[in-house]
Protein backbone atom coordinates (compact mmCIF):
# COMPACT_ATOMS: atom_id res chain seq x y z
CA UNK A 1 0.00 0.00 0.00
CA UNK A 2 1.42 3.38 -0.93
CA UNK A 3 2.45 5.50 2.03
CA UNK A 4 -0.01 8.28 1.23
CA UNK A 5 -2.95 5.82 1.27
CA UNK A 6 -1.87 4.43 4.64
CA UNK A 7 -1.30 7.96 5.94
CA UNK A 8 -4.69 9.06 4.68
CA UNK A 9 -6.40 6.09 6.29
CA UNK A 10 -4.59 6.77 9.54
CA UNK A 11 -5.56 10.43 9.45
CA UNK A 12 -9.18 9.51 8.68
CA UNK A 13 -9.17 7.09 11.60
CA UNK A 14 -7.71 9.75 13.87
CA UNK A 15 -10.34 12.27 12.77
CA UNK A 16 -13.04 9.65 13.32
CA UNK A 17 -11.68 8.84 16.76
CA UNK A 18 -11.57 12.51 17.75
CA UNK A 19 -15.12 12.98 16.47
CA UNK A 20 -16.25 9.92 18.39
CA UNK A 21 -14.48 11.11 21.52
CA UNK A 22 -16.10 14.55 21.22
CA UNK A 23 -19.54 13.02 20.69
CA UNK A 24 -19.04 10.70 23.66
CA UNK A 25 -17.89 13.56 25.85
CA UNK A 26 -20.87 15.63 24.84
CA UNK A 27 -23.27 12.80 25.45
CA UNK A 28 -21.67 12.12 28.85
CA UNK A 29 -21.98 15.77 29.80
CA UNK A 30 -25.60 15.69 28.68
CA UNK A 31 -26.18 12.52 30.71
CA UNK A 32 -24.61 14.14 33.79
CA UNK A 33 -26.79 17.23 33.34
CA UNK A 34 -29.80 15.01 32.95
CA UNK A 35 -28.92 13.01 36.04
CA UNK A 36 -28.45 16.17 38.10
CA UNK A 37 -31.72 17.57 36.81
CA UNK A 38 -33.60 14.37 37.57
CA UNK A 39 -32.09 14.19 41.06
CA UNK A 40 -32.91 17.79 41.82
CA UNK A 41 -36.39 17.50 40.37
CA UNK A 42 -36.95 14.25 42.23
CA UNK A 43 -35.89 15.88 45.49
CA UNK A 44 -38.21 18.82 44.97
CA UNK A 45 -41.10 16.66 43.82
CA UNK A 46 -40.87 14.25 46.75
CA UNK A 47 -40.40 16.77 49.52
CA UNK A 48 -42.67 19.34 47.92
CA UNK A 49 -45.42 16.74 47.75
CA UNK A 50 -44.83 15.76 51.39
CA UNK A 51 -44.91 19.41 52.47
CA UNK A 52 -48.15 19.98 50.56
CA UNK A 53 -49.62 16.85 52.10
CA UNK A 54 -48.63 17.94 55.62
CA UNK A 55 -50.40 21.25 55.31
CA UNK A 56 -53.36 19.74 53.55
CA UNK A 57 -53.81 17.43 56.54
CA UNK A 58 -53.41 20.44 58.82
CA UNK A 59 -55.93 22.43 56.80
CA UNK A 60 -58.47 19.61 56.91
CA UNK A 61 -58.12 19.66 60.68
CA UNK A 62 -58.46 23.39 61.04
CA UNK A 63 -60.96 24.52 58.47
CA UNK A 64 -62.33 27.29 60.65
CA UNK A 65 -59.07 28.44 62.14
CA UNK A 66 -57.45 31.80 61.50
CA UNK A 67 -54.35 29.83 60.54
CA UNK A 68 -56.06 28.39 57.46
CA UNK A 69 -54.55 31.11 55.30
CA UNK A 70 -51.07 30.22 56.60
CA UNK A 71 -51.58 26.58 55.69
CA UNK A 72 -52.83 27.66 52.29
CA UNK A 73 -49.68 29.75 51.90
CA UNK A 74 -47.55 26.69 52.69
CA UNK A 75 -49.46 24.59 50.19
CA UNK A 76 -49.04 27.33 47.57
CA UNK A 77 -45.28 27.38 48.20
CA UNK A 78 -45.09 23.61 47.99
CA UNK A 79 -47.03 23.61 44.73
CA UNK A 80 -44.68 26.23 43.32
CA UNK A 81 -41.79 23.89 44.12
CA UNK A 82 -43.55 21.03 42.36
CA UNK A 83 -44.14 23.21 39.32
CA UNK A 84 -40.53 24.39 39.33
CA UNK A 85 -39.34 20.80 39.53
CA UNK A 86 -41.61 19.77 36.69
CA UNK A 87 -40.26 22.69 34.64
CA UNK A 88 -36.65 21.72 35.37
CA UNK A 89 -37.31 18.16 34.42
CA UNK A 90 -39.11 19.15 31.24
CA UNK A 91 -36.25 21.50 30.33
CA UNK A 92 -33.62 18.84 30.90
CA UNK A 93 -35.50 16.22 28.93
CA UNK A 94 -35.75 18.56 25.92
CA UNK A 95 -32.90 17.89 23.41
CA UNK A 96 -30.14 20.51 23.41
CA UNK A 97 -31.63 21.97 26.57
CA UNK A 98 -28.31 23.54 27.55
CA UNK A 99 -28.23 25.66 24.42
CA UNK A 100 -31.86 26.74 24.53
CA UNK A 101 -32.25 30.46 25.12
CA UNK A 102 -33.01 31.30 28.73
CA UNK A 103 -32.30 27.81 29.95
CA UNK A 104 -29.41 26.63 32.03
CA UNK A 105 -27.56 23.37 32.08
CA UNK A 106 -27.87 23.34 35.86
CA UNK A 107 -31.21 22.54 37.45
CA UNK A 108 -33.22 25.57 38.49
CA UNK A 109 -32.33 26.43 42.05
CA UNK A 110 -35.37 25.89 44.23
CA UNK A 111 -36.46 28.83 46.28
CA UNK A 112 -37.37 27.91 49.82
CA UNK A 113 -38.92 31.28 50.57
Amino acid at each position, binding site marked *: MPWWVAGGLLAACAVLLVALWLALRRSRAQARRLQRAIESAGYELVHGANAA*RAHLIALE*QETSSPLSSSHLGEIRRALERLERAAGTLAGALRPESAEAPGSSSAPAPPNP*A
Partner: protein
Amino acid sequence: MRNADRSVPFSSLKVLSRAPAPRITVGGVGRRHPLETILAKPFTRKVLGYISQPRPDGRSLFEVLAENYDNDRLRGWERWKWKLPSLVIDLALAHYRLDKELMKRKLFHHPPTVRALALTARSIARYGLSAPQRFAAPLFVVWNITQLCNLACKHCYQNAGPRPAPDELTLEERLKVVDELAENGVPFLAIAGGEPLALKDLWAVLEYANRRGIHLTLATNGTLLTPETAARLKECGVKYVEISVDGLDPDEHDGFRGRRGAWARAVQGIRNSVAAGIRTGLATCFTRRNVHRAAEVIEFAIGLGCQTFSHFNFIPVGRGREIVEEDLTPAQRELLLATLQRYLAEGRINVISTAPQFARACVVYGPAEGVFATGHAGRGMGSKTMVLSRYIGGCGAGRCYCSIQPNGTLTPCVYISSIKVGDLRRQSLAEIWESDLFTLLSDRSRRGDHCAVCGYQAYCGGCRARAFAYTGDITAGDPGCVYNMPLWRELVAKASSELPVFQPLAATASRMERLSLGGGPD
Protein backbone atom coordinates in the same frame (compact mmCIF):
# COMPACT_ATOMS: atom_id res chain seq x y z
CA MET B 1 -45.63 13.24 93.01
CA ARG B 2 -42.07 13.73 91.92
CA ASN B 3 -40.90 12.05 88.76
CA ALA B 4 -38.17 10.09 90.44
CA ASP B 5 -40.66 8.65 92.92
CA ARG B 6 -42.43 6.65 90.26
CA SER B 7 -40.49 4.39 87.99
CA VAL B 8 -41.66 1.98 85.34
CA PRO B 9 -39.61 -1.20 84.91
CA PHE B 10 -38.94 -2.20 81.33
CA SER B 11 -40.66 -5.57 81.73
CA SER B 12 -43.98 -3.86 82.49
CA LEU B 13 -43.78 -1.39 79.61
CA LYS B 14 -46.46 -1.53 76.98
CA VAL B 15 -44.59 -1.72 73.67
CA LEU B 16 -45.51 -2.21 70.03
CA SER B 17 -49.18 -2.15 70.86
CA ARG B 18 -49.98 0.02 67.87
CA ALA B 19 -49.92 -1.22 64.29
CA PRO B 20 -48.26 0.65 61.40
CA ALA B 21 -50.49 3.16 59.61
CA PRO B 22 -50.91 3.53 55.84
CA ARG B 23 -48.00 5.48 54.42
CA ILE B 24 -48.69 9.13 53.68
CA THR B 25 -45.24 10.47 52.86
CA VAL B 26 -43.53 9.83 49.56
CA GLY B 27 -40.03 8.50 50.17
CA GLY B 28 -37.07 7.19 48.28
CA VAL B 29 -35.06 10.33 47.60
CA GLY B 30 -32.06 10.21 49.86
CA ARG B 31 -28.64 11.39 48.75
CA ARG B 32 -25.90 8.81 49.27
CA HIS B 33 -22.39 9.94 50.03
CA PRO B 34 -19.45 7.83 48.78
CA LEU B 35 -18.15 7.75 52.35
CA GLU B 36 -21.22 5.73 53.35
CA THR B 37 -20.18 2.89 51.05
CA ILE B 38 -16.64 2.97 52.43
CA LEU B 39 -17.76 3.05 56.08
CA ALA B 40 -20.14 0.14 55.54
CA LYS B 41 -17.32 -2.21 54.45
CA PRO B 42 -16.22 -4.86 57.00
CA PHE B 43 -12.56 -3.94 56.50
CA THR B 44 -13.30 -0.29 57.37
CA ARG B 45 -15.12 -1.42 60.51
CA LYS B 46 -12.02 -3.34 61.58
CA VAL B 47 -9.78 -0.33 60.98
CA LEU B 48 -12.17 1.97 62.85
CA GLY B 49 -12.32 -0.51 65.70
CA TYR B 50 -8.52 -0.54 65.92
CA ILE B 51 -8.00 3.21 65.89
CA SER B 52 -10.88 3.95 68.29
CA GLN B 53 -10.17 1.24 70.85
CA PRO B 54 -9.18 2.76 74.21
CA ARG B 55 -5.51 2.04 75.05
CA PRO B 56 -4.15 1.50 78.58
CA ASP B 57 -4.06 5.27 79.18
CA GLY B 58 -7.78 5.47 78.32
CA ARG B 59 -7.29 7.26 75.03
CA SER B 60 -7.64 5.80 71.57
CA LEU B 61 -5.00 5.88 68.83
CA PHE B 62 -7.20 8.33 66.94
CA GLU B 63 -7.23 10.74 69.89
CA VAL B 64 -3.45 10.49 70.30
CA LEU B 65 -2.95 11.06 66.58
CA ALA B 66 -5.23 14.10 66.58
CA GLU B 67 -3.45 15.59 69.60
CA ASN B 68 -0.01 15.16 68.05
CA TYR B 69 -0.92 16.33 64.58
CA ASP B 70 1.13 19.43 63.75
CA ASN B 71 1.67 20.03 67.46
CA ASP B 72 4.20 22.83 68.07
CA ARG B 73 4.66 21.83 71.69
CA LEU B 74 6.30 18.53 70.78
CA ARG B 75 10.08 18.42 71.17
CA GLY B 76 12.92 16.20 70.00
CA TRP B 77 12.15 12.63 68.99
CA GLU B 78 8.41 13.06 69.74
CA ARG B 79 8.26 15.83 67.15
CA TRP B 80 9.96 13.66 64.50
CA LYS B 81 7.85 10.61 65.38
CA TRP B 82 4.64 12.41 64.43
CA LYS B 83 6.04 14.10 61.30
CA LEU B 84 5.02 11.35 58.89
CA PRO B 85 1.40 10.94 60.12
CA SER B 86 1.07 14.75 60.07
CA LEU B 87 2.36 14.83 56.50
CA VAL B 88 -0.18 12.19 55.43
CA ILE B 89 -3.00 14.24 57.01
CA ASP B 90 -1.69 17.40 55.33
CA LEU B 91 -1.76 15.67 51.94
CA ALA B 92 -5.31 14.44 52.54
CA LEU B 93 -6.45 17.94 53.57
CA ALA B 94 -4.81 19.43 50.48
CA HIS B 95 -6.43 16.79 48.27
CA TYR B 96 -9.89 17.68 49.60
CA ARG B 97 -9.07 21.42 49.57
CA LEU B 98 -9.70 21.82 53.29
CA ASP B 99 -8.27 24.72 55.26
CA LYS B 100 -5.48 23.28 57.42
CA GLU B 101 -5.65 25.91 60.18
CA LEU B 102 -9.43 25.67 60.38
CA MET B 103 -9.33 21.86 60.56
CA LYS B 104 -6.65 22.06 63.23
CA ARG B 105 -8.64 24.45 65.36
CA LYS B 106 -12.11 22.99 64.87
CA LEU B 107 -11.23 19.32 64.62
CA PHE B 108 -7.80 17.94 65.45
CA HIS B 109 -7.06 20.27 68.37
CA HIS B 110 -10.66 20.45 69.62
CA PRO B 111 -10.83 17.56 72.13
CA PRO B 112 -14.66 17.20 72.27
CA THR B 113 -14.86 16.91 68.47
CA VAL B 114 -12.02 14.38 68.46
CA ARG B 115 -13.77 12.47 71.23
CA ALA B 116 -17.06 12.56 69.29
CA LEU B 117 -15.34 11.22 66.17
CA ALA B 118 -13.59 8.50 68.18
CA LEU B 119 -16.94 7.52 69.68
CA THR B 120 -18.54 7.48 66.23
CA ALA B 121 -15.73 5.26 64.92
CA ARG B 122 -16.16 2.93 67.92
CA SER B 123 -19.91 2.83 67.31
CA ILE B 124 -19.56 1.93 63.63
CA ALA B 125 -17.04 -0.74 64.58
CA ARG B 126 -19.43 -2.22 67.15
CA TYR B 127 -22.85 -1.89 65.51
CA GLY B 128 -21.99 -1.30 61.86
CA LEU B 129 -23.08 1.75 59.92
CA SER B 130 -26.78 2.35 60.38
CA ALA B 131 -29.07 5.25 59.63
CA PRO B 132 -29.63 6.55 62.21
CA GLN B 133 -26.42 5.48 63.89
CA ARG B 134 -26.55 3.59 67.14
CA PHE B 135 -23.76 4.83 69.42
CA ALA B 136 -21.54 2.77 71.70
CA ALA B 137 -21.95 5.40 74.44
CA PRO B 138 -24.01 8.59 74.63
CA LEU B 139 -22.82 11.34 72.34
CA PHE B 140 -24.76 13.82 74.41
CA VAL B 141 -25.96 13.68 78.02
CA VAL B 142 -28.35 16.04 79.76
CA TRP B 143 -27.77 15.96 83.48
CA ASN B 144 -30.57 17.31 85.62
CA ILE B 145 -28.12 17.94 88.38
CA THR B 146 -30.61 19.06 91.00
CA GLN B 147 -34.32 19.22 91.70
CA LEU B 148 -33.77 22.56 93.44
CA CYS B 149 -35.17 25.59 91.62
CA ASN B 150 -35.94 29.18 92.52
CA LEU B 151 -38.95 29.25 90.15
CA ALA B 152 -42.08 27.12 89.84
CA CYS B 153 -42.74 26.89 86.10
CA LYS B 154 -46.09 25.47 85.06
CA HIS B 155 -44.63 23.23 82.37
CA CYS B 156 -41.65 21.91 84.35
CA TYR B 157 -41.01 18.32 83.26
CA GLN B 158 -38.83 17.83 86.32
CA ASN B 159 -41.36 18.97 88.91
CA ALA B 160 -38.53 21.07 90.33
CA GLY B 161 -39.12 23.09 93.49
CA PRO B 162 -37.63 25.07 96.34
CA ARG B 163 -35.87 22.07 97.88
CA PRO B 164 -33.44 19.54 96.41
CA ALA B 165 -34.61 15.92 96.23
CA PRO B 166 -33.73 14.03 99.42
CA ASP B 167 -31.72 11.40 97.58
CA GLU B 168 -29.62 13.69 95.35
CA LEU B 169 -26.01 12.72 94.64
CA THR B 170 -23.32 14.08 96.92
CA LEU B 171 -20.44 16.10 95.46
CA GLU B 172 -18.20 13.05 95.56
CA GLU B 173 -20.81 10.99 93.71
CA ARG B 174 -21.29 13.77 91.17
CA LEU B 175 -17.57 13.81 90.43
CA LYS B 176 -17.70 10.04 90.01
CA VAL B 177 -20.47 10.54 87.43
CA VAL B 178 -18.16 12.93 85.56
CA ASP B 179 -15.44 10.26 85.64
CA GLU B 180 -17.91 7.71 84.33
CA LEU B 181 -18.85 9.99 81.43
CA ALA B 182 -15.23 10.80 80.59
CA GLU B 183 -14.13 7.15 80.74
CA ASN B 184 -16.92 6.18 78.35
CA GLY B 185 -15.85 8.87 75.89
CA VAL B 186 -18.95 11.05 76.23
CA PRO B 187 -18.04 14.28 74.42
CA PHE B 188 -20.95 16.62 75.19
CA LEU B 189 -22.63 17.30 78.53
CA ALA B 190 -25.48 19.71 79.19
CA ILE B 191 -26.14 20.63 82.79
CA ALA B 192 -29.78 21.40 83.58
CA GLY B 193 -32.03 21.09 86.59
CA GLY B 194 -33.93 22.36 88.48
CA GLU B 195 -31.87 25.46 88.39
CA PRO B 196 -28.20 24.46 88.20
CA LEU B 197 -26.99 27.91 89.28
CA ALA B 198 -28.82 27.43 92.58
CA LEU B 199 -26.61 24.43 93.39
CA LYS B 200 -23.46 25.25 95.32
CA ASP B 201 -21.67 22.09 94.08
CA LEU B 202 -22.10 23.19 90.47
CA TRP B 203 -18.75 24.94 90.20
CA ALA B 204 -16.73 21.97 91.41
CA VAL B 205 -18.56 19.72 88.93
CA LEU B 206 -18.01 22.14 86.04
CA GLU B 207 -14.32 22.60 86.79
CA TYR B 208 -13.78 18.88 87.05
CA ALA B 209 -15.73 18.07 83.86
CA ASN B 210 -13.77 20.74 82.02
CA ARG B 211 -10.50 19.22 83.22
CA ARG B 212 -11.70 15.84 81.95
CA GLY B 213 -12.13 17.36 78.48
CA ILE B 214 -15.93 17.30 78.27
CA HIS B 215 -17.67 20.00 76.22
CA LEU B 216 -19.94 21.80 78.66
CA THR B 217 -23.21 23.61 78.16
CA LEU B 218 -25.67 24.90 80.73
CA ALA B 219 -29.44 25.40 80.67
CA THR B 220 -30.71 27.95 83.15
CA ASN B 221 -33.72 30.15 83.85
CA GLY B 222 -31.26 33.07 83.83
CA THR B 223 -32.51 34.74 86.99
CA LEU B 224 -29.25 34.03 88.86
CA LEU B 225 -26.98 34.80 85.94
CA THR B 226 -25.15 37.92 87.13
CA PRO B 227 -22.10 39.32 85.28
CA GLU B 228 -19.86 37.65 87.90
CA THR B 229 -21.61 34.29 87.46
CA ALA B 230 -21.33 34.55 83.67
CA ALA B 231 -17.61 35.29 83.93
CA ARG B 232 -17.13 32.34 86.26
CA LEU B 233 -19.02 30.04 83.87
CA LYS B 234 -16.65 31.06 81.13
CA GLU B 235 -13.66 30.38 83.36
CA CYS B 236 -15.04 26.94 84.10
CA GLY B 237 -15.11 26.14 80.40
CA VAL B 238 -18.86 26.41 79.76
CA LYS B 239 -19.13 26.88 76.00
CA TYR B 240 -22.84 27.57 75.65
CA VAL B 241 -25.50 28.92 77.99
CA GLU B 242 -29.17 28.54 77.21
CA ILE B 243 -31.68 30.77 78.98
CA SER B 244 -35.41 30.15 78.97
CA VAL B 245 -37.70 33.02 78.02
CA ASP B 246 -41.31 32.19 77.24
CA GLY B 247 -42.16 35.21 75.16
CA LEU B 248 -42.22 38.94 74.94
CA ASP B 249 -44.86 39.60 77.57
CA PRO B 250 -43.17 39.91 81.00
CA ASP B 251 -46.43 39.36 82.88
CA GLU B 252 -47.22 36.20 80.99
CA HIS B 253 -43.68 34.87 81.47
CA ASP B 254 -43.76 35.69 85.17
CA GLY B 255 -47.17 34.04 85.55
CA PHE B 256 -45.94 30.94 83.74
CA ARG B 257 -42.72 30.85 85.75
CA GLY B 258 -44.40 31.52 89.08
CA ARG B 259 -42.35 34.55 90.12
CA ARG B 260 -42.67 38.27 89.53
CA GLY B 261 -39.68 39.88 87.85
CA ALA B 262 -38.46 36.56 86.38
CA TRP B 263 -38.69 37.83 82.79
CA ALA B 264 -36.61 40.96 83.44
CA ARG B 265 -33.98 38.96 85.30
CA ALA B 266 -33.84 36.28 82.60
CA VAL B 267 -33.36 38.89 79.88
CA GLN B 268 -30.66 40.56 81.98
CA GLY B 269 -29.09 37.11 82.37
CA ILE B 270 -28.95 36.79 78.58
CA ARG B 271 -27.29 40.20 78.32
CA ASN B 272 -24.75 39.22 80.98
CA SER B 273 -23.94 35.97 79.22
CA VAL B 274 -23.55 37.68 75.83
CA ALA B 275 -21.36 40.37 77.45
CA ALA B 276 -19.15 37.68 79.01
CA GLY B 277 -18.46 36.35 75.54
CA ILE B 278 -20.20 33.00 76.02
CA ARG B 279 -22.18 31.58 73.14
CA THR B 280 -25.72 32.26 74.29
CA GLY B 281 -29.07 30.85 73.33
CA LEU B 282 -32.62 31.89 74.09
CA ALA B 283 -34.92 28.94 74.66
CA THR B 284 -38.68 29.08 74.39
CA CYS B 285 -41.23 26.43 75.11
CA PHE B 286 -44.07 27.12 72.70
CA THR B 287 -47.63 26.34 73.71
CA ARG B 288 -50.98 27.52 72.36
CA ARG B 289 -50.52 30.67 74.45
CA ASN B 290 -47.39 31.94 72.70
CA VAL B 291 -46.84 30.04 69.45
CA HIS B 292 -48.43 32.80 67.36
CA ARG B 293 -45.55 35.06 68.40
CA ALA B 294 -42.75 32.65 67.46
CA ALA B 295 -41.23 34.93 64.82
CA GLU B 296 -41.26 37.92 67.21
CA VAL B 297 -39.53 35.88 69.91
CA ILE B 298 -36.78 34.82 67.48
CA GLU B 299 -36.32 38.44 66.37
CA PHE B 300 -36.06 39.39 70.05
CA ALA B 301 -33.33 36.76 70.53
CA ILE B 302 -31.43 38.15 67.54
CA GLY B 303 -31.77 41.64 68.97
CA LEU B 304 -30.30 40.51 72.30
CA GLY B 305 -27.23 39.17 70.53
CA CYS B 306 -28.04 35.48 70.99
CA GLN B 307 -26.27 33.16 68.57
CA THR B 308 -28.85 30.41 68.97
CA PHE B 309 -32.58 30.13 69.30
CA SER B 310 -33.72 26.90 70.92
CA HIS B 311 -37.24 25.59 70.62
CA PHE B 312 -38.36 23.41 73.50
CA ASN B 313 -40.99 20.98 72.35
CA PHE B 314 -43.63 20.99 75.11
CA ILE B 315 -44.29 17.48 76.43
CA PRO B 316 -47.07 16.97 78.98
CA VAL B 317 -45.01 15.36 81.76
CA GLY B 318 -44.19 16.50 85.28
CA ARG B 319 -46.18 19.66 86.05
CA GLY B 320 -46.75 19.97 82.29
CA ARG B 321 -49.46 17.30 82.59
CA GLU B 322 -51.63 19.85 84.31
CA ILE B 323 -51.57 22.06 81.23
CA VAL B 324 -51.90 19.36 78.57
CA GLU B 325 -54.63 21.41 76.87
CA GLU B 326 -51.97 23.99 76.00
CA ASP B 327 -50.00 21.52 73.89
CA LEU B 328 -49.82 22.49 70.22
CA THR B 329 -51.92 20.62 67.72
CA PRO B 330 -49.87 18.77 65.07
CA ALA B 331 -50.98 21.44 62.59
CA GLN B 332 -49.72 24.27 64.78
CA ARG B 333 -46.43 22.45 65.32
CA GLU B 334 -45.98 21.98 61.58
CA LEU B 335 -46.34 25.71 60.96
CA LEU B 336 -43.93 26.41 63.79
CA LEU B 337 -41.36 24.01 62.29
CA ALA B 338 -41.73 25.70 58.88
CA THR B 339 -41.08 29.07 60.58
CA LEU B 340 -38.04 27.72 62.43
CA GLN B 341 -36.67 26.24 59.20
CA ARG B 342 -36.94 29.60 57.45
CA TYR B 343 -34.99 31.32 60.22
CA LEU B 344 -32.36 28.59 60.08
CA ALA B 345 -32.05 28.95 56.31
CA GLU B 346 -31.88 32.73 56.59
CA GLY B 347 -28.77 32.38 58.77
CA ARG B 348 -29.17 35.37 61.08
CA ILE B 349 -29.36 32.99 64.05
CA ASN B 350 -28.75 29.31 64.58
CA VAL B 351 -31.98 27.45 65.31
CA ILE B 352 -32.21 24.19 67.22
CA SER B 353 -35.25 22.28 68.39
CA THR B 354 -35.97 19.41 70.73
CA ALA B 355 -38.68 18.32 68.28
CA PRO B 356 -37.17 15.48 66.22
CA GLN B 357 -39.36 16.58 63.32
CA PHE B 358 -37.13 19.61 62.89
CA ALA B 359 -34.52 17.56 60.98
CA ARG B 360 -37.35 16.32 58.77
CA ALA B 361 -38.70 19.88 58.36
CA CYS B 362 -35.30 21.01 57.06
CA VAL B 363 -35.52 18.38 54.35
CA VAL B 364 -39.18 19.00 53.56
CA TYR B 365 -39.04 22.79 53.43
CA GLY B 366 -35.50 23.41 52.22
CA PRO B 367 -33.71 22.79 48.93
CA ALA B 368 -31.27 19.92 48.42
CA GLU B 369 -28.26 22.24 48.82
CA GLY B 370 -29.83 24.24 51.65
CA VAL B 371 -29.24 24.31 55.38
CA PHE B 372 -29.90 21.20 57.41
CA ALA B 373 -30.23 20.70 61.13
CA THR B 374 -28.34 17.78 62.58
CA GLY B 375 -30.71 16.89 65.36
CA HIS B 376 -30.14 19.11 68.38
CA ALA B 377 -26.50 19.51 67.43
CA GLY B 378 -26.43 22.34 64.97
CA ARG B 379 -26.63 23.09 61.31
CA GLY B 380 -24.68 22.76 58.10
CA MET B 381 -24.93 23.46 54.41
CA GLY B 382 -25.60 21.13 51.56
CA SER B 383 -26.26 17.52 50.82
CA LYS B 384 -23.36 16.28 53.00
CA THR B 385 -25.11 17.69 56.07
CA MET B 386 -28.36 16.20 54.85
CA VAL B 387 -26.67 12.80 54.83
CA LEU B 388 -25.22 13.51 58.29
CA SER B 389 -28.62 14.46 59.68
CA ARG B 390 -29.85 11.00 58.65
CA TYR B 391 -27.19 9.43 60.89
CA ILE B 392 -27.73 11.83 63.79
CA GLY B 393 -31.34 10.84 63.26
CA GLY B 394 -33.73 13.13 65.17
CA CYS B 395 -34.83 11.55 68.44
CA GLY B 396 -31.69 10.30 70.16
CA ALA B 397 -33.29 8.85 73.30
CA GLY B 398 -31.37 5.74 74.28
CA ARG B 399 -29.45 5.74 71.00
CA CYS B 400 -27.05 8.68 71.14
CA TYR B 401 -28.44 10.58 74.08
CA CYS B 402 -29.73 9.99 77.60
CA SER B 403 -30.49 11.86 80.76
CA ILE B 404 -29.18 11.62 84.30
CA GLN B 405 -31.52 12.47 87.16
CA PRO B 406 -30.47 14.31 90.34
CA ASN B 407 -30.23 11.00 92.22
CA GLY B 408 -28.02 9.36 89.59
CA THR B 409 -30.67 7.31 87.83
CA LEU B 410 -30.35 7.15 84.09
CA THR B 411 -33.39 7.70 81.86
CA PRO B 412 -33.77 7.70 78.05
CA CYS B 413 -34.67 11.39 77.94
CA VAL B 414 -35.31 14.27 80.31
CA TYR B 415 -38.96 14.03 79.33
CA ILE B 416 -39.11 10.29 80.14
CA SER B 417 -37.92 10.55 83.71
CA SER B 418 -40.37 7.90 84.93
CA ILE B 419 -38.53 5.09 83.13
CA LYS B 420 -35.50 4.33 85.23
CA VAL B 421 -33.08 2.38 83.05
CA GLY B 422 -30.23 2.18 85.52
CA ASP B 423 -28.57 3.73 88.54
CA LEU B 424 -25.10 5.27 88.27
CA ARG B 425 -24.64 4.80 92.02
CA ARG B 426 -24.63 1.05 91.51
CA GLN B 427 -23.99 0.41 87.81
CA SER B 428 -21.54 1.57 85.18
CA LEU B 429 -22.71 3.68 82.25
CA ALA B 430 -21.48 1.00 79.82
CA GLU B 431 -23.64 -1.62 81.55
CA ILE B 432 -26.75 0.57 81.53
CA TRP B 433 -26.20 1.64 77.93
CA GLU B 434 -26.62 -1.97 76.76
CA SER B 435 -30.14 -2.17 78.24
CA ASP B 436 -33.00 -3.81 76.34
CA LEU B 437 -34.94 -0.56 76.31
CA PHE B 438 -32.10 1.31 74.60
CA THR B 439 -31.77 -1.50 72.07
CA LEU B 440 -35.50 -1.18 71.38
CA LEU B 441 -35.31 2.61 71.07
CA SER B 442 -32.35 2.36 68.70
CA ASP B 443 -34.33 0.20 66.29
CA ARG B 444 -36.44 2.42 64.07
CA SER B 445 -38.23 -0.55 62.55
CA ARG B 446 -39.97 -1.07 65.88
CA ARG B 447 -42.41 1.80 65.76
CA GLY B 448 -46.17 2.09 65.50
CA ASP B 449 -48.57 4.31 63.53
CA HIS B 450 -47.08 6.46 60.77
CA CYS B 451 -43.64 6.50 62.45
CA ALA B 452 -43.39 2.84 61.33
CA VAL B 453 -43.63 3.66 57.65
CA CYS B 454 -42.62 7.31 57.37
CA GLY B 455 -40.31 8.30 54.53
CA TYR B 456 -38.39 10.43 57.04
CA GLN B 457 -37.98 7.70 59.64
CA ALA B 458 -34.17 7.93 59.65
CA TYR B 459 -34.19 11.73 60.01
CA CYS B 460 -36.78 11.93 62.77
CA GLY B 461 -38.08 8.77 64.45
CA GLY B 462 -40.80 10.68 66.27
CA CYS B 463 -40.58 12.01 69.81
CA ARG B 464 -40.54 8.97 72.12
CA ALA B 465 -41.38 11.11 75.14
CA ARG B 466 -44.54 12.48 73.53
CA ALA B 467 -45.58 9.01 72.32
CA PHE B 468 -45.10 7.65 75.82
CA ALA B 469 -46.80 10.59 77.55
CA TYR B 470 -49.92 10.37 75.41
CA THR B 471 -50.28 6.65 74.75
CA GLY B 472 -48.24 4.86 77.42
CA ASP B 473 -46.47 3.00 74.58
CA ILE B 474 -42.93 4.25 74.00
CA THR B 475 -42.92 2.78 70.48
CA ALA B 476 -46.20 4.39 69.36
CA GLY B 477 -46.32 7.05 66.68
CA ASP B 478 -45.55 10.60 67.76
CA PRO B 479 -49.00 12.18 68.14
CA GLY B 480 -47.45 15.62 67.70
CA CYS B 481 -46.55 14.98 64.06
CA VAL B 482 -48.93 16.05 61.35
CA TYR B 483 -48.43 12.71 59.56
CA ASN B 484 -49.85 11.02 62.67
CA MET B 485 -53.04 13.07 62.62
CA PRO B 486 -55.29 9.97 62.90
CA LEU B 487 -53.56 9.10 66.20
CA TRP B 488 -54.00 12.66 67.47
CA ARG B 489 -57.68 12.56 66.50
CA GLU B 490 -58.05 9.27 68.31
CA LEU B 491 -56.51 10.72 71.48
CA VAL B 492 -58.66 13.80 71.30
CA ALA B 493 -61.75 11.66 70.72
CA LYS B 494 -60.90 9.87 73.93
CA ALA B 495 -61.20 13.18 75.75
CA SER B 496 -64.46 14.11 74.08
CA SER B 497 -66.22 12.69 71.07
CA GLU B 498 -66.89 16.16 69.70
CA LEU B 499 -63.84 18.09 70.81
CA PRO B 500 -62.50 20.42 68.11
CA VAL B 501 -58.84 20.69 69.03
CA PHE B 502 -58.51 24.11 67.60
CA GLN B 503 -61.06 25.87 69.75
CA PRO B 504 -59.85 28.71 71.94
CA LEU B 505 -58.01 27.48 74.99
CA ALA B 506 -60.64 28.40 77.55
CA ALA B 507 -63.32 26.43 75.76
CA THR B 508 -61.23 23.30 75.41
CA ALA B 509 -59.45 23.26 78.75
CA SER B 510 -62.06 21.56 80.85
CA ARG B 511 -62.75 18.87 78.28
CA MET B 512 -59.09 18.27 77.48
CA GLU B 513 -58.56 17.47 81.15
CA ARG B 514 -60.34 14.22 80.50
CA LEU B 515 -57.81 13.28 77.83
CA SER B 516 -56.35 9.93 78.79
CA LEU B 517 -52.57 10.05 78.96
CA GLY B 518 -52.07 6.32 79.21
CA GLY B 519 -50.95 4.37 82.23
CA GLY B 520 -47.16 4.57 82.10
CA PRO B 521 -45.85 8.06 82.61
CA ASP B 522 -46.40 10.53 85.42
